[in-house]
């Protein structure tokens, strides 16, 4: 099974979220998701300053075989995007939890994170899917 770091939170749509200081979240797609996609060749990043709702589409990750929407894990405002990915989209495959992060989000509510899955919940979900 793909790596599922214990300290992160997860969505049913295969995003992960990490709480940074000040309550902001870093968001990416899971190792499992990038394996399913295959070689990522392009990302369409969200706009900084855009507001997103929980579960709303906010960007696109394009691999050699599919173009997939990425959904915001919680409601909030996009405060930073990973511009490294414009030239190196393969970072998503290489380090999905590291340099392959997608964007940072300032949640409207600190409690929103509680709605997400923990590592065990996510592991159970993908085990059930396979």
């Amino acid at each position, binding site marked *: 099974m793909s790596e599922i770091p214990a300290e992160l939170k997860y969505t049913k749509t295969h995003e992960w979220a990490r709480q940074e200081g000040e309550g902001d979240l870093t968001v990416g797609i899971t190792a499992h998701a990038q394996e399913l996609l295959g070689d990522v*060749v*392009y990302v*369409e990043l969200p*706009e900084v300053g855009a507001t997103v709702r929980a579960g709303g589409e906010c960007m696109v990750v*394009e*691999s050699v*075989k*599919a*173009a997939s*929407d990425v959904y915001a894990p919680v409601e909030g405002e996009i405060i930073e995007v990973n511009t490294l990915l414009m030239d190196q989209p393969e970072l998503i495959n290489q380090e999905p939890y590291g340099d392959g992060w997608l964007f940072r989000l300032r949640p409207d509510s600190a409690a929103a994170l509680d709605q997400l899955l923990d590592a065990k919940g996510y592991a159970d979900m993908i085990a059930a899917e396979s």
Partner: protein
Amino acid sequence: MPFIPHTDEDIRSMLATIGVPDIEALFDEIPAALRTTDFDAVPPGLNEIEVTRLLRGRAAQNHAAICFAGGGAYQHHIPAPIWEITSRGEYYSAYTPYQAEASQGTLQVIYEYQSMVAALTGMEVSNASIYDGASALGEAVLMAVRLSRRGKSPRVLVPATVHPAYRKVVATLVQNQGISLEEIPYDIASGAIDLEALESIKEDFAALVIPQPNYFGCLEEVDALTNWAHKQGGLVIGVVNPTSLALLKPPGEWGEVGADIVCGEGQPLGIPLASGGPYFGFMACKQAHVRQMPGRIVGRTVDLENKPGYTLTLQAREQHIRRSKATSNICTNQGLMVTAATLYMGLLGPQGLAQVAAACHANTMALVKRLTAIPGVEQVFEKPFFHEAVLRFPVQASTVLSTLGQHGILAGVRLDRTYPELGDTLLVCATELRTEEEIELYTRELAAALPA
């Protein structure tokens, strides 16, 4: 769902939607004199000799006129090898080359086509073609709006000098997408986009469409227009005649940084007029915009043994992968037309194409000079033109058309329906096919038709 098209109820509903009483009424705009009513079906059980005789007789009902009409579709010489090769079974039967391992020939043709279109337009990338020129412009407008969504209102400036049919198609395509099209008037003296009218536009816009040559055949001030649009933060969409590009500055070099998207009708490149189709649209853009370009691109790569191979790439925008978010919903790849165009460009080469373009220009210059020497006939616009010009007559344009038509001359394209302010004018065109004798014949018959 039964695969039976057009039940009686479907037909009734379609007619009701567009407000037409019956099918016959759809053909109202075709003059009665042109319609053939005594046109029986081919009788059953004819032998080959009888069928040949029947069809020859029917073919003889077509009267080929000497064509001085253009307006977006042009009669050019098509060297014999082009359709001889294009109609080989290998090209003729192949539809869309999804299976790369079985379609290397077709894929390579498209790859060569893309390279030639990119070279001709001065752009970095070309797609593998679109349905026709008008829908290519519609797609270019949608693409420009996707590219400029950041902080921009979806508003596109479309000059009145863009082909009227193209403007209608674009309006139809974008009407439900929240995009507004703003018409830019032309300068009545020059026949080109009114630069002063542009200066009054202050609000944000996504793109400016620049036709070159424009519908009147006139050359637009492409450098000034391109720089103006870019200075305002808008993109530039060039709509160009591919033949003219052999002589004119390619859109990739317009202004300081060039046009962003280029499109047009590919028919002049080896496609017969054929009563209006099938034609194909071409589309090219800057590399930076390629992700928003509709349709597919064929790429060249190497296999494990380092042998070259061709494959469809950048397909992630298409329906079979992206479903409802596809950016290529009407991107019908006109493969066979593209094959003919590739052969046409390949056989003529840059020099041959430049000779065709120069001959078109020279013939139209000669035509305009001869016709305007007739008292009462004048050239309407003062701008330089490529291979079309607008002429005004001292009698009704429809009279000129019908009188010359009786002598086997297709005298031009009427403008009074789309540009009523121009009065009795025709858009006339002389391609490389028009001979001195034919130009002389036009001149003589026109002089005879006008009041002394």
